[in-house]
């Protein structure tokens, strides 16, 4: 049975960053297990621009970002096992086992002192949001269509309706158009778009693609291949207004309706999951509820910018290294509580002893807030705040708390909430 100090599950940007950080912190034997043929994860199919502005101070495409990180990896002795799937984890305190499988070595049991979960996420499906009607070919989630086009070189369709105006939906509207398809409309159930304004300009306005806010797809038509969709306007409660129903002929429906962290392995191992983020409950160095197992990237909580994914990967890698060197204080001194207007906060727990200068909390707000501040309190004391013109659910926000503000308080709860300025 092979044995490593750290096994990283997932060789996308989160896993690669975690492995690099662990290596930089004197961990000797590190293995990355990746299910695809190459490293890079979802970046390989994100051929558009906009990555790396923070992390590399350059504007890069997904593959270029992945390439730079892979080059760093190649300078180390970190082992990489591609085309391999992790099936299960066993956690028995000191003994952690990763069960992985590939065609060359069969089913393997790999021992690890620490494990870093970086499996990314999957897309929410038509079935999960219950769009009714027929079940023809031509209904794709945006990521699957993106893979078909950008990796396999095939067009998923010619006349498209896209549901979901988050960045993935917008990017795909442009990609399909560039490849000669006609995107009839991008529908968005909310009264505002979730995507970056620059994407609305570059992906929709540039090509005169209509953005229909407060609309959704209520039925898919077509026996063998999609023939069209019924769409309706929705009311304040997001319920379809039947009298507004109209039919748009098309042969393809792309769904960009949400990402779900892929934690089936984590759940099966008994790791505690936060119901709101759908990812593990973690501490300041991304340690999960199972000792020696860490988590980072989209599997922990869905990110918008890969730069933050890399930052989080470094945290988890550092945390795993500290654990291996017996420098990680277990238990927790503080808990973060999402208050008014705050949907999710990561990390959910903090051990102040493991922090050197300060700690960054990452959160998402529940709806659009203008002229507000995000405030963090311990008891009555305000310990950190952030003011912006606008807070959007689609943009993860970070809030920095100084270490001394944690130690100065014995109260264990940090309440984070939105307040009007």
């Amino acid at each position, binding site marked *: 049975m092979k044995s490593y100090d750290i096994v990283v599950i997932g060789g996308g940007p989160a896993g690669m960053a975690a492995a690099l950080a662990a290596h930089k912190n004197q961990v000797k034997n590190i293995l990355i297990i990746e299910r695809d043929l190459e490293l890079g994860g979802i970046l390989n199919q994100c051929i558009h*621009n906009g990555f790396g502005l923070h992390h590399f101070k350059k504007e*890069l495409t997904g*593959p270029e970002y992945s390439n730079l990180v892979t080059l760093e990896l190649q300078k180390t002795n970190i082992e990489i096992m591609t085309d391999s799937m992790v099936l299960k984890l066993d956690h028995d305190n000191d003994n952690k086992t990763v069960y992985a499988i590939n065609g060359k070595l069969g089913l393997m049991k790999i021992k690890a002192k620490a494990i870093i979960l970086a499996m990314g996420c999957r897309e929410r499906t038509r079935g999960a949001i219950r769009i009714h009607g027929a079940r023809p070919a031509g209904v794709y989630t945006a990521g699957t269509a993106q893979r078909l086009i950008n990796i396999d070189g095939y067009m998923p369709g010619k006349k498209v309706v896209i549901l979901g105006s988050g960045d993935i939906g917008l990017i795909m509207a442009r990609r399909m158009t560039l490849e000669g398809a006609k995107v009839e409309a991008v529908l968005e159930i909310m009264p505002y778009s979730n995507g970056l304004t620059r994407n609305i*300009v570059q992906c929709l306005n540039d090509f005169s693609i209509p953005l229909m806010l407060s609309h959704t797809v209520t039925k898919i038509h077509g026996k063998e291949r999609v023939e069209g969709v019924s769409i309706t306007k929705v009311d304040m409660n997001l319920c379809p207004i039947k009298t507004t129903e109209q039919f748009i002929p098309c042969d393809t429906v792309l769904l960009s309706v949400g990402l779900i962290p892929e934690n089936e392995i984590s759940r099966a191992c008994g790791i505690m999951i936060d119901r709101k983020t759908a990812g593990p409950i973690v501490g300041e160095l991304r340690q999960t509820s199972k000792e020696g197992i860490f988590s980072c990237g989209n599997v922990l909580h869905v990110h918008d910018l890969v730069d933050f994914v890399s930052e989080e990967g470094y945290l988890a890698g550092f945390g795993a290294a500290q654990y291996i060197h017996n420098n990680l204080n277990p238990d927790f001194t503080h808990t973060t509580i999402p208050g008014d207007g705050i949907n999710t906060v990561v990390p959910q727990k903090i051990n102040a002893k493991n922090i050197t200068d300060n700690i960054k909390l990452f959160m998402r707000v529940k709806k659009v807030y203008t002229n507000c501040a995000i405030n963090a309190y311990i008891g009555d004391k305000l310990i950190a705040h952030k003011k912006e013109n606008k807070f959007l659910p689609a943009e993860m926000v970070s809030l920095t708390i100084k270490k001394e503000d944690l130690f100065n308080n014995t109260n264990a709860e940090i309440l984070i909430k939105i307040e009007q300025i």
Partner: protein
Amino acid sequence: MKTLINMTCICCPLGCDLEIDKSGTEFIVTGNKCLRGKKYAIEEITLPKRIVTSTVKITGGRHPVIPVKTSAAIPKEKIFTIMDILANVEITAPINVGDVVVKNIADTGVDIVATGA
């Protein structure tokens, strides 16, 4: 009478709301938080430019296509011309990130470079 144009800057995720006064001989840009925004606003009115990212066919590679991009922004009106040219490009492995795949595409002075290997 003032001729005012509103637009959102797309240079970075801040997305400043810009206002351009076209009435005089020189364009006056307000609302930008940095100089890139000013440059973008003027360009967007006079000659809008975009970076184009796409894929081209490759033989002998791991996958049938590799990702490419324009090495700089090109005039927006040439986007589909460039896409048509790329449709007929076929390259052979090995290719490295940054290799020029097509020089001076559509007479823009800009190259098409590989972004994947």
